[in-house]
């Protein structure tokens, strides 16, 4: 039906498992995409070298929201080092849209930017 809005994206957008707050988070970060007004916040509970739990909040398009959901699903319960190693291509692979256009790429990568911001200063 839609080449951009894959099943994966639609599913992650419509049924996010990681939307919400973590009142006792150890790390958090918020950023925005001023051109489209998207705002994304992430809260993480880091325990030793692991990301124990992770939640996101904010508003934005399906691409940026689904990207946040998929990223946090991937990092939750895993090593901080794995989260720090994530790159642009990993995000696009998670989303299943390697061919995204430059304008929407910004939406897709906002989550990665915020995640990196939250983990800033942690060692790999």
């Amino acid at each position: 039906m839609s080449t951009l809005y894959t099943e994966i994206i639609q599913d992650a957008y419509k049924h996010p498992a990681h939307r919400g707050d973590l009142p006792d988070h150890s790390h958090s970060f918020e950023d925005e995409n001023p051109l489209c007004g998207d705002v994304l916040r992430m809260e993480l509970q880091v325990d030793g070298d692991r990301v124990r739990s992770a939640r996101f909040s904010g508003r934005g398009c399906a691409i940026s929201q689904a990207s946040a959901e998929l990223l946090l699903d991937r990092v939750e319960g895993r090593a901080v080092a794995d989260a720090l190693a994530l790159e642009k291509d990993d995000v696009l692979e998670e989303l299943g849209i390697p061919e995204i256009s430059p304008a929407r790429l910004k939406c897709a990568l906002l989550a990665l930017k915020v995640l990196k911001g939250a983990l800033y200063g942690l060692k790999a």
Partner: protein
Amino acid sequence: MMTTDLASPLDVAAIRRDFPILSGATRLIYLDSAATSQKPRPVIERLARYYETQNANVHRGVYRLAEEATAAYEEARATLARFIGARPEETIFVRNATEGINLVANTWGAANIGEGDVIVLTEMEHHSNLIPWQLLAERTGAQLRYIGLTPDGRLQPDALEEILAGGRVKLVATTYVSNVLGTVNPIADMSRAAHAAGARILVDAAQAAPHFPLDVRRLDVDFLALTGHKMLGPMGIGVLYGRQEILDAMPPFLGGGEMIRRVGREHSTWNDLPWKFEAGTPNVEGAVGLAEAVRYLESVGLEAIAAHDRRLAAYALSRLREIPGLIAYGPEERGALVAFTLPDIHPHDLASLLDERDIAVRAGHHCAQLLHERLDVPATTRASFYLYNDERDVDTLVQGIGHAREVME
């Protein structure tokens, strides 16, 4: 409900055939003319003809080719001057509306606006008629005052008078037509009020000039800027109108060739109007292309285009309002565009999903962030229309929105 037969005064099918980009194998539903218009064949061909037969640097050449290029350039100026009811001396070629407004801020503004003086803007301004005044205000200590909006997106009726009554207003800078709300502002009334208070008025006509007849004398404005690429002309060319006696007294803008009379080691004197404000080699190609665009618009008829646009905007508004939950911003009476939001789909998602069906709309703040804050939405989706659009395009848009909703539900 499908298309009714609102008889347009235009033969849209014939017009579309004049636009190569709209005549491809797949029908492109181009609903982003408020960002930039497409170009008819005569304009595209005029650019080629210029370079194939007339190209030379203007004004200083003695040979025939240079004469011809100069004549073409100055004829283009005369065409644009006539189009807006100005004299050629008052018709300055600039890159775009943005440069025209910055020119005024940096010359007339810098010379006439000082600390504590007031510049009046509206809450619906495009950044191009906002940032230049912010920069000037920061430099000079002038104050910015904003005319607020009614709930349906018109200027607050008495706001201008109230601000003017507060005194020290040097300039009212307003858009003619909002590029988000579609609101058509009462420029002649605003001019009268501004002048009665001893203020000047500058009009951003970027969204007006493409759509209906315009006359700077009848509007009695002091400055007016338009941009060629939104009115079928090439990119890189626009016009700034300035009232002659104001332009005469203004310092120059950029320095260089063409705008000079006599050069000394420390100091120089300026050329006559309008060349005083055109430094360096002008965009002759752009000027002749824009003049060709004006001729095309006039051959179709500006009044007919205006009537067509009004009908189409009304039709779009009524069709869009049938969509549950859709909010359309702006007043009933409007220019040829509708910006709207849906409760369940982000504008960027909607634009992407429509694009998959060859429908081009714009999503974002449309360079009007202040207005979007005022509307309390980060972004809207905007469909804008022009002489090559028809009811079928609106119907396709409405169907496309239905489809997008299905995908995202």
